[in-house]
């Protein structure tokens, strides 16, 4: 599962903080590609597979406002 966050709208610090909170639900990897920060999720916990992407994006948005 790949999520592309626009660098102008999402802060890298917020993404890293969100990954730290979600790391027990999946394996995360980060890479930068052009104007985007790409987050790849592997080995996702079965119980949260359907919602993890949306919940993670909301959490990054929440952290962006906070920091």
């Amino acid at each position: 599962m790949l999520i592309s966050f626009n660098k102008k709208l999402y802060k890298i610090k917020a993404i890293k903080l969100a990954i730290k909170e979600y790391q027990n639900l999946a394996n995360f990897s980060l890479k930068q590609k052009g104007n985007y920060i790409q987050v790849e999720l592997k080995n996702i916990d079965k119980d949260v597979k359907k919602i993890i992407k949306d919940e993670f994006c909301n959490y990054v948005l929440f952290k962006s406002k906070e920091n």
Partner: protein
Amino acid sequence: MDKNEIKFILDLKDYPLEAIYGAAYVFINKAYLFLDNKSSKKIEISLKGKNKLTKKQLENLKGEFLNELLNYTLRVNLNKHNKKIREYIVNQALFSAFNEEEITQEDKLGYEDDPLGIAVPWEEKYKKEIKKTK
């Protein structure tokens, strides 16, 4: 519009980015949000229902978001325009917190004046008192 999701584009000329973040923050509890930059001045907002929503409910969600956005835009603009007057009011409040008499009295004193007797040597100050008690 598909998959329980509604997408729309906002122009940064009409809505400041700060207001978009503010409205998005309010909607975090109601929906799943995702922001993307379509061009330098246009932002695409995706609103996805946390539960299964009908087309009409998604349109209502969009409407509520736009209302909240308008609310935040007004707040941001007011904040920008009232910045100077707010700073002036705070300065005045802090300044008037000082006692006016204290300020004028302090202004009259020279650096050699010693109304509290701090500059008097210890011997001088306490010898007199000892003599008096004897």
